[in-house]
């Protein structure tokens, strides 16, 4: 049976990758802050239940110190140029929309499925588990069709920047983390 524990592991590994990629991005002056924030969050996801209350408390203080003093951020100019995005949007348009909608659709379908069919997944956590599954499906479908490669996916980006590694998942990630952190906290 799939439990929330599986999703914590998935999230922990994802955040650990964020941390490693963030650390490797030498063009970003805030790379150490990014790596520390996502690394601590990965630790919380993977080992939160073994850290103890006080350990978790120190982890929270560290997260607040990193985010609250503005140590998280993306490198300047990391976005795909608007012209390239428009060109790709014209080409892939509705496919992008379908992939984006896979996530809520799977979350919705899974929630009902796991409640009706017992034994597949923890029914109390059906939506979060389905969300995780939806993300994996959407990522697989998106990568299979779009095939962002290190060179190809971002070939038009300005010279000298470490290209695709940051261009696909990381650019959105870095630009959004502080805002997301705040909105989730409220």
């Amino acid at each position, binding site marked *: 049976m799939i439990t929330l524990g599986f*999703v*914590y592991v998935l*999230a922990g590994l*994802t*955040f650990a990758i964020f941390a490693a990629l963030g650390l490797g991005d030498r063009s970003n002056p805030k790379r150490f802050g990014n790596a520390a924030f996502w690394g601590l*969050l990965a630790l919380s*996801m993977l080992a*939160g*239940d073994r850290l*103890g*209350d006080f*350990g*978790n*408390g*120190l*982890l929270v*203080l560290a997260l*607040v110190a990193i985010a*609250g003093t*503005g140590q998280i951020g993306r490198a300047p100019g990391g976005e*795909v140029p*608007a012209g390239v*995005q*428009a060109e*790709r*949007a*014209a080409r*892939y*348009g*509705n496919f*992008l*929309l379908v992939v*984006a909608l896979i*996530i*809520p659709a799977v*979350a919705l379908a899974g*929630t009902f499925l796991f409640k009706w069919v017992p034994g597949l997944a923890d029914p109390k956590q059906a*939506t*979060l588990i389905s*969300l995780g599954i939806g*993300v994996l499906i*959407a*990522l697989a479908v*998106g990568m299979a069709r779009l095939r*962002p490669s290190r060179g190809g*996916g971002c070939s038009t980006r300005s010279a000298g920047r470490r290209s695709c590694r940051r261009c*696909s*998942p990381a*650019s*959105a990630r870095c630009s*959004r*983390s502080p*805002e*997301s*952190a*705040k*909105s*989730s*906290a*409220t």
Partner: protein
Amino acid sequence: MLVLIGIAIIIAGFLLRFNPLLVIMASALATGLAAGLDVTAIIAAFGKAFNDTRYVSIVWIVLPVIGLLEAYGLQQHARSLIGRIKGATLARLLASYLLLRQAMSAVGLTSVAGHPQTVRPLVAPMAEAAAEAQGVALSDAQRDEIRAYAAATDNVGLFFGEDIFLAIGSILLMKGLLEGYGYVIEPLHFSVWAIPTAIAAFLLHGFRLRLLEKRMLRAPGQGTGA
């Protein structure tokens, strides 16, 4: 009374526009100290609360998908889609999203939509495009305002929808608290009486969205609109 100092810190901190995260942390610390807890106990309380609710951060696993799609022009596509729908106005679009979000939350589907997975990649660019289709040449500040309203619409929809759903923590909290005062109330009653509040929230926020739209259309140098 001293334990209420946390509230004063929150008000002062927000008025002075300090970083909200730091303000809340300072307020919680001050409250704990005023209540006579020692620092270790306060940190442990933070840790326990954070660890018990860390599932709220799971949603960030969608970021690689959203980043991939945005690099390939998802926001542009969402914009051009709205530009082609006749009658899609800023207020109508956001009010529809509000209704959808409230309805989904009311049946317990709170994690289906949200800021990372729906607002930023879809709703915000669509709202901007709807305003542009109404003839508004958006300034950067207006763009920011529309994005903020898109995010706020999600908050309102979630907040005033989820209380209708029975099995939500806030209902259990209210039930427990009232029971402590001798009022035994069925959770179903909380759900039922959350409905008028939800309707009021929809009407009020819908009205605010109309005001936003009017303000955008009336801004100096704007077109006549739709």
